[in-house]
């Protein structure tokens, strides 16, 4: 099934997400991010309105056809064979075009330049580090942990308290989600949310 192609994907099951922020805090803690950076964030809509409140966790979706990679003027993005979208902070000029192109608001910018200008872009790496030597000090400094190289699950999904956040090969993620939907017997989605948005099938 997934012997030939692996495409690493995130999916957040909003029927299970309870806005505990475990993922975002675990992410920030694991990668020692500056406080202004939210590689992953949890969003609640209709808070306090009966029957309408729901939450979901969002970060870089590691698109197959990543718009950020398309617009980057300096081509600092690269997509690994397993589908993880990464970028090179040494090349990045912090222009912010990726943010305009991203449908999910994944790119984050530290406000550390002169007069409050943007620094080099930072985003979810699916805990796969960056182009530097794997597990080197520089990689740790710039991109945080490289858990994928150690055979570990990305820290957000590992820490998810209700296992709402799924990560892995898209086949596996969809299998798990399909099982949940089948067990629940309702709430079937025609396509993952954001799909239409990102790929313009409206």
């Amino acid at each position: 099934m997934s012997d030939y192609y692996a495409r690493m994907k995130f999916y957040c099951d909003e029927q299970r997400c309870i806005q505990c922020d475990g993922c975002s805090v675990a992410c920030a803690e694991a990668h020692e991010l500056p406080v202004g950076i939210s590689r992953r964030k949890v969003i609640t809509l209709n808070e306090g309105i009966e029957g309408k409140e729901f939450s979901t966790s969002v970060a870089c979706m590691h698109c197959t056809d990543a718009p950020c990679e398309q617009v980057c003027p300096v081509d600092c993005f690269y997509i690994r064979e397993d589908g993880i979208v990464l970028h090179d902070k040494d090349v990045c000029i912090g222009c912010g075009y990726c943010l305009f192109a991203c449908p999910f608001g994944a790119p984050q910018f530290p406000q550390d330049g002169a007069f409050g200008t943007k620094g080099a872009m930072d985003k979810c790496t699916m805990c796969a580090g960056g182009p530097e030597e794997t597990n080197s000090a520089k990689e740790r400094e710039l991109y945080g942990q490289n858990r994928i190289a150690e055979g570990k699950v990305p820290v957000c999904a590992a820490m998810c308290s209700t296992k709402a956040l799924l990560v892995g090969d898209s086949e596996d993620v969809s299998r798990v989600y399909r099982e949940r939907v089948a067990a629940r017997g309702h709430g079937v989605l025609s396509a993952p949310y954001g799909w239409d948005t990102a790929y313009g099938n409206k």
Partner: protein
Amino acid sequence: METNKSFFSQNKAYILVSLGFMALTYWYFWLATIFDLNYVYQFILSIFQGDISGQLVPLEDMNRYQQMEAGVFGPRYDTIAPEITRAFEERQELLPYVFAVEFVAFTIAFIFLGRKKAVISKPDDTVLVYSLFQRVVLLLNIVIMIYLFITGFSITFGNITGGGAIAYFMRWTHEIVGLGWIPIWLILTVIAFKDHKFFKRPSGKLWNKIFLRGKYKPMYRINYYAYVAFGFLLALSGFLLWFIFPTAENYVHVIQFRRLMLFMHFMASAVISFFIFETIYSYVIAVKGYLPGLITGRLPREYLEELRPDVLVEMEKENN
């Protein structure tokens, strides 16, 4: 003004430029662009009503998944972002052609019209046209705009620079120098290029200056208006892009607005570039001897008599 001239020949420059603009607008908005015109129109209306979120349909009226898309990822990604992606990609390919066309156009103009030259017999008989302050502003404007163009291009044509520390430096100085350009633009707008005594004058004549009442060459006026209008768009969009810092918290509320601002920035910079070239051409190439005057502030009286009698007349009016 001769009365037997037709309306067309009187206003030839305005009409031609307007037609050109209309053709450009038509080509761009009705043929080329892929953004959702109707949405952008409604969005701009809602901005004037004070809502910059771009969420035109109330969240409550949407179903759960639409809410999720809008509430988490921002409103209607498909309306502006694809155009930005496309415009961005095409700029890298198109802009060289545009500049080539502009270059060719000015070259042709130079070939056919040649270089105007004043016959100067008394080089020492000069008139002070620009005060020091005006010279500083005018020259700073040229230098800053050139720098902004270079750094702006270093972002757009990042594929050539390949990124790295120098391109990064140019990118953030683009933001800061751009901030510095805003007051210069403002001063230039009210000084209106030729009026050198703005700061001494009562404010009653401010409108005259801004709207350039009086006698001017049509191209001069067009150039000025374009500079004011597109400069305003550039300064505003650039400032807002810098001012509204993108954070995870404000993302949903400002991303669409920022996209619109970036789009405005792209458009305005593309249009203003033509007029900047025109200005530089007219300063440096079209007329000989103007550039030294711009630097020293003084021009030979004969130069003015031959090429810019209106300036001389006005100055004399003031002296009396």
